[in-house]
């Protein structure tokens, strides 16, 4: 008994020394502030086990809108932000909150709406579809939550020459909700809504909604990943965070992203610029 205990104590000391000598990221965990589309589409559930197996680093995902995710990072409450609003991401890096932006992947937005398409919005040009919805004054559900999808939607309204927020029209439903909740609302109201394809493919409660516009190059939805600046927030796990970023853009990470499919359809497309 006694020798065994002494042996254990010696083993513990050796282990401790080894740990001190070679600081390892094994067994650590990082927090990733990301968007509802990546979480709700099931991408992370597909992606993270592969990374955790490869690195031994546990990834905890907090899913919010892009705006809130960036704010979580800005406050130092996450190690990584993984979002889809390139302009806001550049600002995040420019104000010193993040180290640098790395492009990871893209998916695309689609406009969905009632199968009967009362506004005749179906087509290949997203801006003329938005114009058609405005002239018909048919119900349109907006995220209204400063998310990446919301930012894209506002961009299309601006290109269509419409400012739905100042018109305060009844047809424009500013729901202030996440993608899934907005889709539920649109399904219940039989309204038009802009959604990312990934969430749409994973969404089950579609009722009468169908894809009406897709494929327009303006509908591309770029996802970027940024390490929160350790110079601003000293507790940020820079080493572990960087290895997550490195893995995402590695051949392994990119092929894992490409292999995520729902019903045979690919949801996200690798897009790492090395």
């Amino acid at each position, binding site marked *: 008994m006694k020798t065994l205990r002494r042996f254990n104590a010696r083993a513990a000391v050796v282990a401790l020394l080894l740990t001190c000598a070679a600081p390892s990221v094994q067994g650590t965990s990082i927090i990733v502030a990301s968007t509802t589309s990546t979480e709700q589409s099931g991408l992370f559930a597909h992606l993270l086990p592969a990374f955790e197996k490869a690195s031994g680093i546990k990834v905890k995902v907090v899913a919010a809108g892009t705006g809130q995710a960036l704010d979580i990072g800005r*406050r130092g409450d996450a190690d990584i932000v993984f979002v889809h609003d390139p302009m806001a991401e550049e600002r995040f890096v420019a104000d010193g909150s993040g180290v640098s932006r790395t492009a990871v992947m893209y998916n695309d937005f689609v406009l969905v709406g009632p199968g009967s398409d009362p506004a005749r919005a179906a087509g290949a040009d997203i801006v003329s579809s938005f114009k058609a919805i405005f002239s018909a004054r048919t119900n349109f559900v907006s995220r209204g939550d400063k998310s990446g999808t919301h930012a894209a939607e506002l961009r299309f309204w601006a290109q269509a020459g419409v400012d739905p927020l100042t018109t305060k029209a009844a047809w424009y439903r500013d729901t202030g909700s996440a993608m899934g909740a907005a889709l*539920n609302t649109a399904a219940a109201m039989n309204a038009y809504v802009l959604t990312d394809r990934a969430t749409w493919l*994973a969404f089950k409660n579609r009722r009468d909604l169908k894809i009406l516009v897709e494929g327009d190059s303006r509908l591309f939805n770029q996802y970027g990943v940024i390490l929160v600046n350790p110079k601003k927030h000293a507790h940020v796990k820079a080493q572990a965070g960087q290895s997550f970023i490195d893995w995402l853009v590695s051949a392994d990470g990119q092929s894992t992203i490409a292999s995520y499919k729902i019903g045979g359809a690919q949801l996200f497309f690798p897009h790492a610029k090395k």
Partner: protein
Amino acid sequence: MSLIVDSALEAIRLMASGDARLMEVAQLSVRVSGTATIIAALIALPLAAWLVQTRSAVRAPVVVMLNACMALPPVIVGLVVYLLLSRSGPLGALGWLFTPNGMIVAQTVLITPIIAALARQTLDDAQLEYRDLFGSLGLSRWQSVATLLYETRFSLLIVLLAGFGRAIAEVGAVMMVGGNIAGETRVMTTAIALETSKGELASALALGMVLLLIVLVVNALAQSAKTWIGRRYV
């Protein structure tokens, strides 16, 4: 209607199969809300006891404030605790944001006023009944309060259950402070919110049924504890 049937079947399937993720989420719900209830009770019951016996001028305003705080919106509690626990906030060094500890803090803040306000009223009502007896027996103020706490133990148990029920059923505070991280801070209510936003309505309802069942079991346990305590009387 088929949705309800589907969800009920799904609920039964989840529970019968002992679904590992469900068990983990359910356990965390009970652990977080149970701990919050215990901590809240340790703060609220002494506060209520103090309020019952004090003649201080702050008594009336404190009572009104506690009663009003029963209506604290969970998201506001969540937001305030989020700002406090954020790395940029005053308690950031604890590193409790997006952890079960943070969720316990938020729920404790949420239900302490509920337990304190209800316990205070329960003790006050009992005091009215017992005051003359305690006076004639020459009990001190604190002896009286201690006896009141014991005499109202069954009512106070219900008060604690009300606090626990509020905690385990709320989603706003745990969502903000916990972040709904899978396997870390995902509890029953945030899982339900997630399933709903995925359009998985049957699965969301099934989880709702499981949550109700958990609450039912906790209440049944409390009821049997009460019966067991009462069993020594013939």
